[in-house]
């Protein structure tokens, strides 16, 4: 058991810091729309030209094949430099669509999509949830019927982050007529410019457009866009969620520590005051979250459900930190600022990517071995 920066790590950290300090854009990122898309793509392109795009991807696919030790160092330096949020509209492409294609895609799919993702030329979104299939994802009902060399897709997805500015979508649909639950699904690459797709942006409680409804009306998707095999979509989707919960989590969780240090600096609490105690608690919690992240990344035998544990702790802590910030702001909490915006946005943390309740069910059933709920 050890955690040590070797000479190699130290020089890697220095290189990352030097590059970030010269290249991170100054000023705030646009919050939504076409401007946010352009900003994010420009940043990925810049990272790519500096050799810092998709550095955890295998070298064969344009990455640097770096292990979690170097990725952690990169993300530590990244958040400390206040580089653009890792959770922006490039998140899906870089953190799970790309890795899913690498794991399950065909050579043609990889050759076409991976360079676009790494070079900052395409934005992806994730079309899993439906109005009647949120927590219960396996009950989804958007269909794709095989017709010649195509699937003909009809139905609706909802809460699709960045659907309004995306080029491609990870689309999970029911392709085997009459199939139930996890069986008969397919994971397909959907070109968002296909005829028959209508995107209706949804404004969120923070006042920005983050997600959208997507309607499919006889949308034709070539069978060559199926990833991981026709009717085998659940396995591919689980691969996707596995990536979503691991590498990507690193940057978000480390970012929380930096954000909290900003809050402590802003609040400058009187020693011994109730606010000082609360901030100290949050600081301890952020340190613990960071320790959990390291543990999950640097242990061979991490149980997959530890991802839920890490995710749940992150989500709740993110909310607590934002709530505390609102108290520190006093009357200024009523104005739009980075902190008040973050506060409203933080309500999504315990919903998106599996709600806090669902994460608790997973922890109890799969980590602690408690019996499953009886179904009605």
């Amino acid at each position, binding site marked *: *058991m050890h955690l040590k920066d070797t000479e190699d790590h130290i020089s890697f950290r220095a290189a990352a810091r030097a590059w970030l*300090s010269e290249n991170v854009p100054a000023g705030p990122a646009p919050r939504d729309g076409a401007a946010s898309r352009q900003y994010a793509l420009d940043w990925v392109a810049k990272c790519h030209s500096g050799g810092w795009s998709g550095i955890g991807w295998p070298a064969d696919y344009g990455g640097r094949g770096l292990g979690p030790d170097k990725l952690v160092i990169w993300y530590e330096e990244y*958040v400390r430099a206040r580089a653009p949020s890792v959770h922006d509209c490039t998140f899906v492409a870089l953190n799970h669509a790309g890795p899913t294609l690498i794991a399950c895609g065909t050579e043609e799919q990889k050759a076409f999509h991976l360079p676009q993702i790494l070079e900052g030329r395409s934005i992806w979104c994730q079309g899993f949830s439906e109005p009647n299939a949120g927590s219960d994802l396996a009950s989804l009902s958007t269909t794709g019927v095989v017709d010649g060399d195509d699937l003909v897709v009809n139905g609706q997805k909802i809460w699709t982050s960045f659907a309004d500015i995306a080029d491609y979508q990870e689309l999970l649909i029911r392709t085997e007529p009459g199939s139930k639950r996890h069986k008969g699904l397919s994971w397909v690459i959907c070109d968002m410019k296909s005829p028959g797709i209508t995107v209706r942006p949804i404004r969120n409680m923070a006042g920005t457009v983050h997600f959208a409804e997507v309607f499919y009306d006889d949308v034709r998707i070539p069978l060559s866009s199926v990833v991981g095999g026709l009717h085998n979509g659940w396995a591919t989707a689980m691969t996707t969620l596995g990536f979503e919960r691991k590498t990507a989590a690193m940057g978000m969780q480390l970012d929380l520590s930096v954000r909290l240090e900003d809050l402590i600096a802003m609040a400058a609490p009187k020693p011994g005051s109730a606010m000082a105690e609360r901030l100290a608690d949050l*600081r*301890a*919690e952020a340190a*613990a979250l960071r320790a959990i992240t390291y543990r999950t990344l640097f242990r061979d035998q991490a149980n997959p459900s530890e991802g839920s544990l890490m995710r749940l702790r992150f989500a709740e802590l993110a909310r607590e930190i934002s709530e505390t910030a609102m108290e520190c702001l006093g009357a200024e909490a009523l104005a739009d600022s980075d902190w008040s915006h973050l506060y409203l946005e933080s309500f999504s943390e315990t919903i998106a990517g599996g709600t806090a309740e669902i*994460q608790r069910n997973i*922890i109890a059933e799969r980590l602690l071995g408690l019996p499953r709920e009886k179904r009605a």
Partner: protein
Amino acid sequence: MSYDLNRNADQRQILDAAEAMLAGSYPLARLREGASDNLAEASGFGAFLLGLPEEQGGAGFGIVEEALVHVLFGRHLLTPRSLAAALAVRLAASSGDDALMAAIAAGETAVAPAVRSGNGYLLIDPAQAGMALVFGAERLELVRIADAAPEAGLGHDLSIARMPANDGQAIAETDEAGLLLLSSLLVSAQLLGVAEAARDMAVEYAGIRRQFGSVIGSFQAIKHHCANMAVGTERISALLDMAALALSDGREDAAFQVAALRRLAPKTALANASLCVQIHGGIGFSDEADAHRFVKQAHILGRLGEGQPLLDLPAPLVAFSRA
């Protein structure tokens, strides 16, 4: 690989051996007899010399292994004299009293943990102890016990004694930062053990107790309590590894990691212990079940010293200013 949080073969071996010793000599059922623990078996195992350098009689292990063994002590609700012994051995060693060090390590001289209260000390589990280790925020003191008056303790099964302060009694003392951090680390390790054991007992009961025709663990209200215990435990367990490694490597962030751990550990142990009582229902409130012992142990351990003020310490991860 130089970022690795797996337990190596030596660590697994010492922990397996410690667990076997504890399961044999200190099963939880022993507590129902109400006798104070005899630490001879733990001493014989070498538990109190484990983390010392070999030239001081240590076994060549380090702080990390010692902390992990104290987690197991916590799980078995071993008397907190085990903490006093581990620290008193170091105080005796640093004051050059090798004979005293050997006597404490061998379990021949029992040391009761003590905390300051009012003008004096409260000694915890002081039966047969000739000296006490006083846990303070800025100082650890080894004092000789005199005039200690036994009285009823929390829930009538904690044995305590009250002793007036007397500065003349000190045998050894230290305000050395490393030892104070180690003290916080080991106290937290035992608190983690309490939290883990309370979680496991609650989960086990939730898996066998039936109501409304189902085991109660299939109800979400119970399931979510259990999940909360798992999350609570995991976060201090990960932080313990982090803090122990930082302390053992002399890393700059050691004080920060230990202080964060020390802040969270008592709350977590108490939260898990009280949920364990709750999940047991009526039997949980009875003296006959063991759930209440976790509550009491969490309170005892939580009183032993205090962590450094966390906001005063530099954070390891803050933004840097750009070119």
